[in-house]
């Protein structure tokens, strides 16, 4: 086969992984939809090779000018509490992740998504579609202007309400770094009854909650929240078993 690269001499990074004690499990019994969808068998370890340590370059070409301002659609202004959401995308070694595509989506101020499946009786907003996209700058920073999403009922259990949240989708540089997650707001009284939030092990839950950002609040204009997102980083500990011979 043409162009096949033969082995030897390739030094590949190895990406760290959180312990199970601080990582969201794939399934969680209190979140009922996981019952028939979360795989039950133990996953097979896949060492990080070329396909796992590389990833697509997706940047400015996927982003339009208005994608960083969700408050203005169809020639009108969205109803709701205007907020600036900002932060940095880093890896677990503290390195910024520049040029990373960040995709966000959310409910409107009344807690309704612009989606055919969402038909609970809260109003849609003709000037809000809930979609935003930004690319991190050279220091890994991102920000977008939006309105604070409302809470909404979702039928998981009696009187179940999702705490206000914004969905985030991120690519790092490598397949191993791909992350889809949700950002919450501080001190939400709905945390206690939400199994999606509580599926995160307790020691890591604070990482999903943004911080009220007084310093970026804009006078007479918008409140601000800061949320840093940390992707998996490269393991810097030396390989102990490198070059220990044929393992086939």
């Amino acid at each position, binding site marked *: 086969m043409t162009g096949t690269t033969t082995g030897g001499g390739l030094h590949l990074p190895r990406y760290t992984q959180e312990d199970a004690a601080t990582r969201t499990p794939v399934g969680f019994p209190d979140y009922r939809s996981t019952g028939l969808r979360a795989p039950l068998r133990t996953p097979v370890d896949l060492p990080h090779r070329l396909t796992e340590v590389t990833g697509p*370059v997706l940047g400015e070409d996927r982003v339009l000018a208005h994608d960083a301002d969700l408050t203005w659609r169809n020639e009108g202004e969205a109803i709701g509490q205007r907020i600036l959401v900002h932060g940095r995308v880093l890896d677990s070694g503290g390195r910024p992740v520049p040029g990373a595509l960040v995709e966000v989506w959310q409910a409107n101020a009344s807690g309704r998504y612009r989606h055919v499946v969402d038909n609970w009786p809260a109003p849609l907003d003709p000037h809000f579609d809930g979609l935003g996209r930004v690319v991190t700058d050279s220091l890994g920073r991102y920000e977008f202007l939006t309105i604070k999403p409302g809470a909404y009922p979702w039928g998981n259990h009696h009187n179940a309400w999702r705490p206000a949240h914004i969905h985030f989708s991120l690519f790092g540089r490598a397949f191993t770094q791909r992350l889809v997650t949700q950002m919450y707001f501080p001190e939400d009284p709905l945390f206690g009854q939400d199994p999606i939030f509580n599926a995160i092990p307790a020691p890591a839950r604070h990482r999903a909650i943004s911080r009220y950002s007084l310093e970026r609040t804009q006078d007479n204009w918008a409140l601000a929240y800061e949320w840093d997102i940390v992707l998996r980083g490269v393991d810097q500990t030396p390989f102990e078993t490198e070059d220990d011979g044929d393992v086939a």
Partner: protein
Amino acid sequence: MSKPIGNPLDVPPNPSEPFQPRSGQRGSGFLSGPHRLGTTPSATVGPYLAIGLSWADGEFAAEEGTSGGFWIRGTVVDGAGAVVPDAMVETWQADPDGGFPSPEDPRGAATYPGFRGYARAQTLSGEFSIFTLKPGRLPDGEGGLQAPHIDVSIFARGILDRVVTRIYFADEAEANAEDVVLRGLSDEQRSTLIATPGDDGYRFDVYLQGERETVFFAV
């Protein structure tokens, strides 16, 4: 009227406020060993992913009409045998010459005409479809070659952290027999990773649970 905010990313550096990890450790440089930042926990993509993650060209890992291109189609099936209509399937793979359009490839980023290497497809119709090219073989780091494969991530309501699998190809039997990943699996497990020839390419169904549960990988 919406107040213009200018370029939202054009924020001047503020050296008086260095990044400070939430743990309270002062961020004086890169972190290593025990002084690592905790990663942001994953969450489900939820039922409304179509709002945020739909791309007009999402299904095309290779541009439409690229020579040698074909479709990979399949369903995502839950533990009750029901087709999952609100999943997203993402793929990432090498080009036919075994290169990646990624600067993270230590051999250098490759530029194969019309090839992105990445695709995403939702299962709204009951089926996902990805248009791509057959990936080349890659070194496995143990002196051998991996068989042509595609890394796959699956996201859905009811899945709190993406699940990862791989697509291999039924018509690469010789390469598959040499593949370090496939060799570590039983025949039954291996069969869940093999795409079979279809009308306009290949078929690859994903079983999230049950007797035919697809092999998923911890990466």
